[in-house]
């Protein structure tokens, strides 16, 4: 693990290797990611990135990743990318150097430096932001009892136009529903007469409006109405109204067991 610098033994910094069991704690609580860790090592130990035994560290990282819990995988990936970047830098440094062999875009070193610079700036300023006087920590809101105040809740105003547009929308929606229905089933008066008769045979005495299914839309209602008129004309059913403007009931034509007056249609 020792490197020799011009014949003199030299300790390779080992800080980049962290035992797996400690890493989770350190990574989650101390460092904000691989950039933060690298920045720390560089600042703290005067670490020259080129001098790190990157390949060794890379192996350690891989070993760590294998040991890692599945839920830490994403974090491990980020550290692995960093280890790979360091390894790449290292490998390039071992190649014979020629001037300007990489342009700035390509050189992983330039990229990493830019990243470190940028990150350090924000890391520093975020520490300053953390020190800003903050509500509920450094300054407190003033709580004061209010005088007795009658809270008023003014009610919303509604304009006639709003009401009309609401109603128009209802009508439009019914029409859409109607078209949808009509396309599925052809409503004919005769068919409707039969189904009305069937209903009345079952219930004998029904409210007039219950014969209508509003969801069918205007067309459906018209068909039902025509069907009822037709049935009345054919004396198959009777319309009964107990009092003027009272509810109208319908029964089958044959047995009128109600004393109520019949309605002229």
């Amino acid at each position, binding site marked *: 693990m020792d490197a020799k610098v011009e014949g003199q033994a030299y300790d390779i910094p080992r800080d980049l290797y962290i035992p797996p069991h400690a890493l989770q704690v350190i990574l989650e609580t101390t460092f904000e990611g691989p950039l933060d860790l690298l920045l720390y090592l560089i600042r703290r130990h005067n670490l020259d990135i080129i001098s790190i035994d990157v390949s060794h560290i890379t192996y350690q990282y891989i070993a760590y990743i294998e040991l890692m819990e599945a839920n830490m995988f994403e974090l491990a990936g980020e550290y692995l990318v960093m280890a790979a970047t360091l390894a790449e830098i290292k490998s390039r440094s071992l190649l014979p150097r020629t001037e300007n062999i990489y342009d700035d875009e390509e050189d992983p070193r330039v990229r990493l430096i830019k990243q470190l610079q940028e990150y350090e700036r924000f890391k520093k300023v975020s520490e300053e932001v953390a020190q800003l006087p903050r509500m509920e920590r450094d300054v407190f809101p003033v709580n004061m009892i209010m005088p007795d105040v009658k809270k008023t809740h003014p009610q919303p105003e509604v304009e006639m136009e709003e009401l009309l547009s609401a109603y128009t929308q209802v009508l439009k929606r019914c029409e859409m529903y109607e078209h949808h229905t009509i396309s599925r089933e052809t409503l004919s008066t005769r068919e409707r007469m039969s189904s009305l008769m069937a209903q009345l045979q079952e219930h004998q005495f029904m409210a007039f409006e219950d014969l209508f299914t509003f969801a069918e839309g205007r067309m459906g209602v018209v068909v039902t109405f025509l069907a009822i008129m037709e049935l009345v004309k054919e004396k198959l059913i009777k319309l009964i109204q107990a009092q003027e403007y009272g*509810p109208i009931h319908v029964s089958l034509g044959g047995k009128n067991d109600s004393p109520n007056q019949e309605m002229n249609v």
Partner: protein
Amino acid sequence: MITQLSPVLEAILLAADQPLSVERLGQVFDEHDGVDNKRIRQALKELQKSYDGKGFELVEVASGFRFQVRQNYALWVSRLWQEKPQKYSKALLETLSIIAYQQPITRGEIESIRGVGVSSSIIHTLIDRLWIRSVGHKEVPGRPELFATTKAFLDHFNLKQLNDLPALDELASWDEATMAPAKLKNPQQQEIEVVTEPVH
């Protein structure tokens, strides 16, 4: 040793969300502060005097001292708290318009026209607003309430009678088909009667 006790007490009492007794205030200080209950009481008395002519005051209530905004400024405070009127929902407006044009009508009928349920809160809001009222029950199973609009509704919309409601182009044919049967003879007149005369 705290030499200027008044601003400290001021700060504590202003930050507190309940009245604080002299004893409770005393617990905030430690021995180095050199603050006893007598000093606290003295400082509070001086503070109280210092707020003459200010918008607030320091008063002693049963459980201790508290700051409060002076009652004479209630008017302006209340203007601050006046809420902006909310807008009514589309569902409410639709329900109201259906009742206006198709009254008297049951909730179930409104629902089948709208194709969705009508919440109780909409009906209650409209009743609270005095725009609709129950005018009787429909003689069908369950005897559901029949709703109709009121005079207050007409007043709000500057209408003399329901007849003055604008006619929608498609309205005539729609009405004939879906209006409650009792209205078939003369729909429009019938509508007006429901609104202007008590039903029972």
